[in-house]
């Protein structure tokens, strides 16, 4: 009996290995496993006639034989199907990319900045886009009649008090007015200006604002943090220049420029012969701003910084026209 089982298995394996298509497999299945005349079926049918001792010995062997053959047939079938479908593919032909999900370049840049600032303990702030003159100008030390509040630059919803925010500093004013220090917050956001749209300027664009208020904050802290931001965005070898810059909402104010990568500071067309590219504006939050927002400037000091995001996004993604970014003309590869 044992020999018969082994012979059956041997013959089955040989036939299985030489089977090259589904028909051959089907024939093999019928030959061994058909309910009436299958060779293996027949062997199994002899089981009841065996002595109890033989039953104990060969029963499990026979059952296993049947099971193994069934599984082997299934595996071979899958293998044949696979082979048929791929029929010797040329794997040196590159695949074709499918269109996939994509974040907007501005979102990608905001996230890059947010991840830096979150690591440094900052929260992400948010505020209204329709604003009041109070938060957009007055609390930021921009009194009535200040040139920066000029009607020409501001889009008003209802003159003279309700407008579309012209900078994310309005959110700074709101946060300072509703929270007590210590504070570390960044605000990415949409801003609006009454400007004619061209390649580099639009009436709608993005700002990225940041602020820190605590006891003992000084301008050297500002300088350090902004140096780290630039290294994060542009690499450790970025060369920076720090200069005095006036903004009404800060004193002292500070501007940061990056050395032009094209001319290494010598002056070229890209940097308009300056040798440097303006990067962002910042400064120690004005005494009057803190006071107007209900924070005691004798106890707390702080700094703020702000930058236009769109030029950064455009340079990172090689986009030359701001209208492409927000004018509904952007598509992804």
């Amino acid at each position, binding site marked *: 009996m044992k020999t018969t089982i082994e012979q059956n298995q041997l013959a089955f394996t040989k036939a299985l290995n030489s089977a090259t298509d589904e028909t051959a497999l089907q024939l093999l299945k019928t030959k061994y496993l058909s309910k009436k005349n299958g060779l293996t079926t027949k062997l199994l049918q002899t089981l009841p006639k065996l002595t109890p001792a033989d039953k104990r010995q060969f029963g499990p062997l026979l059952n296993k034989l049947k099971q193994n053959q069934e599984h082997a047939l299934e595996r071979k079938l899958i293998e044949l199907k696979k082979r048929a479908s791929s029929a010797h593919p040329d794997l040196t032909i590159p695949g074709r990319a499918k269109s*996939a999900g994509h974040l907007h370049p501005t979102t990608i840049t905001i996230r890059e900045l947010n991840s830096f600032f979150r690591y440094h303990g900052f929260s992400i702030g948010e505020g209204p886009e329709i604003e009041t003159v109070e938060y957009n100008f007055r609390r930021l030390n921009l009194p009535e009649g200040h040139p920066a509040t000029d009607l020409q630059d501001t889009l008003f919803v209802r003159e003279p008090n309700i407008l579309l925010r012209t900078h994310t500093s309005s959110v700074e004013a709101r946060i300072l007015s509703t929270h007590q220090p210590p504070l*570390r917050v960044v605000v990415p956001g949409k801003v609006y200006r009454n400007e004619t749209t061209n390649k580099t300027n639009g009436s709608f664009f993005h700002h990225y604002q940041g602020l820190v208020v605590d006891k003992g904050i000084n*301008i050297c802290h500002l300088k350090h943090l902004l140096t780290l931001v630039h290294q994060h965005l542009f690499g450790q070898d970025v060369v920076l220049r720090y200069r005095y810059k*006036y903004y009404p909402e800060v004193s*002292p104010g500070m501007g940061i420029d990056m050395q032009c990568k094209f001319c290494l500071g010598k002056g070229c067309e890209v940097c308009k012969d300056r040798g440097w590219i303006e990067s962002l504006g910042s400064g*120690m939050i004005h005494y009057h701003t803190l006071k107007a927002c209900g924070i005691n400037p004798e106890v707390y000091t702080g700094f703020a910084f702000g930058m236009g995001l769109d030029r950064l996004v455009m340079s990172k993604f090689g986009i030359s026209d701001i209208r492409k970014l927000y004018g509904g003309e952007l*598509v992804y590869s």
Partner: protein
Amino acid sequence: MRIPALWLSDYLTLDKPLRGIAADFTTIGLMLDKPIENQVLDLEQRLNRSDLLSILGCARDLSVFENVPLKEPKVKLHQARPKTSSTAIKINVQTPAVRRFNTRVFRGLTVKPSPSWLKERLLAYGVESINNVVDITNFVMLELGQPIHAQDTDKFMEPEITLRPAKKGEQLQTLLGTTIKLDPHVFVLSSGDRVTVIGGIVGGKQTGVTASSTNIILDAGNYDPRVIRTTSRQLKILNETVSRYDKPLDPRLCEIALNRATDLILTLAGGTYYQNIDYYPHPVIPQTLSLSFARLRLVSGIELPPKKTKTTLQTLGYTIIDETPDKIIVEVPYFRTDLEVEDDLISDVLRMLDYNHLPLLPLTSAVPPEITSPLTNFEDYLRDVLVSLGGQEHITSPLLSASGAPNQVKLANALTIDQNSLRTSILDTLSQVPVAYQKHALSLPPIFELGKVFTKKGRGDKFSDYQETNELGVITPSSRDFLASLFTRLGISNYHLLPSSANQVKITIGSTTLGLLSSNSFSLNLSLLHQHFHQYVGVVTEYAHRTSLDLSLRLPANLHYCDLEKVLKKTSPSLQSIEVLEELQGNLLVRLYWKKLSSKEATKNKITLALKKLSITSRSG
């Protein structure tokens, strides 16, 4: 501000190439704006400092920064002759815009071409040379920052100048020959009721100083900068005079500028000079500020020797009027009208020290409490989910042309009609994007945008009349499938689509409407979506072992799927979910799932009966 190297060298000697000087100016706040041409620096002047619109003022800051002496112009003070009835020009001020109007009368001048040193300097700056008197007024303005103005008194109708609001319909022909129509918002100088000058903006041709002039009146005025700004914008006149009056000037500068001009006129044009009216009703009191060394240490982060601090401030023109070991009290010089607080003195000290010399100090204070709003975090998460579903993100400008809807927010001063309002739905502006894909011959993937939409209630007078809502918009031809996938990922299963209009359905959970869906788009209110969102879902932990039942049925025209859903749920409260496998012109293949169902046959009968009541024919029963 343009600074010719030639002119700058009158006030200080620097052994440095012009590029290096430009770098110095940039460091102290005056950034080089344009490439250096013809030995002239063009500096961006965005400070609130009028003295930096004068070449002497710029030279002063540079001299302190470079630690070289400043050579101030030597001005000889001439003795004026007392005014007489024949020389006196009466001054009547009838407008509050005038803070000072200082005048001097000159007689017997010789108007002729300017000497070459004067011509060269003006030409280098970019101002045309006219004659010695006009050139002197321009020279003094550029040197000191105070606009001054000369008129030929022989061309006056009356020996008087009245400063008053213009009358409606009055006109003035300017020195350049253009005629400007005036109205009462503008204040003018008139003589014998004839307008001769638009105050602080531009002079008229009729009383201009020409080669034949011999008798003139010279004036230096100080006006409310807000009035000048509004008027110049209204008249669309921007010139050297306007840009200087735009920033606050100290009235004391009038006298200093007239002294300089008088000296130059008497030297270059001869003649005699007579006193005339100096209208100056409220002389300014010099400003004083105190600077504590502790504050300086706090803001700067460094220890600066008090001696060096004092020297810096003194060379910048401040006078130390009192001091203790802890602080100094300074008088602010007349040319600095920009100082508000102690920190502004610190600005000056650090500016002259050079920010590049400040150390980098890491923040060492404890990290403050987190105040990021949960909605902001949710939006970030949502973007990732949308992208994982194949969504491509877009950001569109919320500005668009007015739709006429009463609740739409319209702008009061938009430049163009295509951008005069704000969107009320995110789809209003996102819907322009598919065209771009068409242009690129690309098939449209699911596109989405997260942003604000704006509505107005009431009259819109108050800030609280305006509402901003964060919205998600999606455009895709398979909007229902995309919504279903999105909701699965957000752990939302209990939503319904209920009829709203012919082309749209409401996306609802319970009694809350989250948004609207049409065949190729949907929008969702993000705050509401956030309330129903579950983050920790999507992991299958056990085998389903569900019982299912397929129903093939036909809906009558007056019924929607949502009606069927309601009935099915009522007949079998243990029903877990329903899936529509196929839909074709009112024919639906629906699969119902139960976690456990005691009697499938009984349930089936119950359902068939209920459907019959609604005249729904089930073909699988």
